[in-house]
């Protein structure tokens, strides 16, 4: 295993890990590891919620608005529910939203971007027009509009967020495809008579894939914030489901009396978003040299 890492084996996966480990000597690398660790921790927390949470998040377990202390490590909120338990259980929603929203965005944005970038011409311009129109809307407003129309629920919220992000995936992929398309090796593949499907799938896609993880992590961070925003405005999920954003909307008016009920959910949103951003930044640094050039930066090609 170590030998596999050390030699940075020629397989793609091997090279990925090899670079990964080597990269962590730099500051960017450390941040990536921190980000990954935090995200993993939150995922674990979400999965093990039934075992970790001291109380049932939806039951009133004590007097409302008790400060942190004693059995209630983070105090209780307006409804007398344990904040800590709500934090633990409340991690499920943001993670679910990330999973669904980014999947939808990617599933729609990627193929459209590939198609548009490769086809060029009028088709490209038409799709661009549509995408740019969506893109022109401020994200949150658009999400609000869609959510208001299609109603509440995890899937609906995810969809609303996804729509906002599709143009971003589309844009980045399309531009990247348009430039890779001009590269000589694509032309060579076409000259060799390879079918178009193959050219797009095997020659263009792997060379644009490096931009995807970055958008993904920024998308994920954004999704969390958008969902929280929707929740604060009462457009998120139906009440009763523990959710960080929802908790903020529930408690923020009582901030001076019970700051902890608003503070902790907000803090966790911040932590998750920041961790995702670290992962995104780091992934960019790592994937670029991996998929393209040599790592040895030797100034002039002497």
């Amino acid at each position, binding site marked *: 295993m170590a030998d596999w890492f050390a030699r940075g084996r*020629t*397989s793609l996966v091997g090279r990925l890990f090899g670079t990964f480990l080597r990269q962590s000597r730099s500051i960017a690398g450390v941040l990536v590891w921190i980000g990954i660790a935090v995200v993993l921790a939150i995922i674990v927390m979400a999965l093990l919620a039934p075992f970790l949470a001291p109380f049932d998040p939806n039951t009133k377990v004590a007097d409302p608005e008790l400060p942190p202390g004693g059995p209630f490590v983070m105090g209780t909120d307006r409804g007398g529910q344990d904040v800590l338990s709500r934090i633990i259980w409340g991690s499920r929603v943001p993670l679910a939203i990330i999973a669904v929203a980014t999947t939808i965005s990617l599933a729609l944005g990627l193929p459209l971007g590939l198609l548009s970038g490769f086809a060029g011409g009028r088709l490209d311009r038409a799709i661009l027009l549509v995408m740019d129109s969506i893109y022109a809307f401020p994200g949150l407003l658009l999400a609000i509009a869609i959510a208001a129309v299609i109603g509440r629920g995890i899937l609906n919220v995810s969809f609303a967020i996804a729509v906002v992000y599709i143009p971003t995936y589309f844009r980045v992929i399309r531009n990247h495809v348009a430039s890779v398309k001009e590269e000589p090796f*694509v032309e060579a593949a076409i*000259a060799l*008579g*390879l079918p178009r499907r193959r050219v797009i799938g095997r*020659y263009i896609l*792997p060379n644009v894939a490096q931009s995807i993880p970055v958008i993904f992590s920024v998308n994920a961070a954004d999704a969390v914030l958008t969902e929280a925003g929707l929740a604060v405005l009462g457009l998120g999920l139906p009440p009763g489901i523990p959710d960080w954003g929802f908790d903020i909307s529930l408690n923020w008016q009582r901030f001076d009396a019970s700051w902890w009920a608003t503070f902790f959910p907000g803090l966790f949103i911040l932590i998750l978003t920041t961790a995702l951003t670290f992962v995104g930044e780091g992934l960019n640094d790592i994937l670029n040299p991996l*998929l393209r050039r040599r790592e040895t930066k030797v100034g002039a090609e002497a």
Partner: protein
Amino acid sequence: MTEPLLEVRDLKVYFSVYRGFVQRLLGGGDAKVHAVDGVSFSIAQGEVFGLVGESGCGKTTIAKTLVGLVRASSGKILFRGEDVTRPDRKGLFRVRERIQLIYQDPQAALSPAMTVGEAVADVLRAHGLPTDKGDRVHAESEAEIRAAVYGIFDDVGLRPPAFYYDKYPDELSGGQKQRVVAGRVLGLRPQLIVADEPVAMLDMSVRARMLEFLMELKARHHLTYLFITHDLATAKFMCDRIGIMYLGRIVEVGPARTIYADPKHPYTRALLQAIPIPDPSRRSAKVLPKGEVPNAVWPPGGCRFHPRCPSALPTCGWEGRDVIALLEERWLSIELAAREGIAGPVEAWEADGLIARRDVGTAEPHAVQALIRTIIDQSGGPMAQAVRDIRVEGRTVIVEFRAPEPLVPKEVEGRVVECLLY
């Protein structure tokens, strides 16, 4: 005489230049790049035909047209007598099994995200494996494809093949990459290979090896080459016959030995003379053509080389633009520019086919007329004799040239030249 493997007749490839909306409104019509403007040649089975010229002459465009990456605007391309000028999808697929392309930059021709083994395997998957009978059959399994790739790698000298299969392009040297590119192309068992500057990007001490490799492949697989290069020295060594291209046309074509021994076209002579010789004891003063290759959107009239040709004749195609070029060059000297100020500035002159004119504004037209006449006469050479008339019409001075003699390719001493000197 046996039928040539490839025959190109009066091939023209024009590209539209994208001009902005407003420009189109004002300028009228689309500008076209005359990349290939009436080229004819043929290649016999088993020979190495060289297409030599500087960048912009159209040789790469011809290469791309032959492989179907670019569509011909007019003319004919015949492969073994079959018309492949504008093939449909299926036809194109088949053309690509017979004519293939080796690139100048092997690094750029390979996808950096794919192992070189996979790059070759892909071709075999798409087209099937070649059989001894000459046709193709689709592989039964991945193992079969891999074995075929190993065979190809062995053939091109990448041994042991299993070692090279999993390598990425950036792990190989320039020469090795070029071999992969060759191997990939050979997977199709083409009959004609177009090699576009195959050694230009390799170091000198490695070039010989690559050229030998190409000749070896040719012998082993009974290939025919169209060898495209700007390096006349390499072309002399490799090619049986060569065609010299300038700005979209072939100016001289024939057996290599004949042309090199006694180049007829002034451009060929200029190219040969310009090559730096690695022997300092033979330094000589070079007579170089003036200026640079003009752009292919508005090529010079008559013989395209006439503005730069050291041996031009009055009938070679002098036109209005040449007057402007003359003035521009003359007035590089600041004192001449000052003294002859009334005829200038250069921007005031307008070229229109065989005519160059300018509205003298407030200057005295006859003075400008006389000055222009003197300037042209002083320039010496054929331009002065090509002038039909320098006259004044109202406030405009007009310089008009005689119509040029039509250019016809002629056979001269064993090769074909397109030049009025003959």
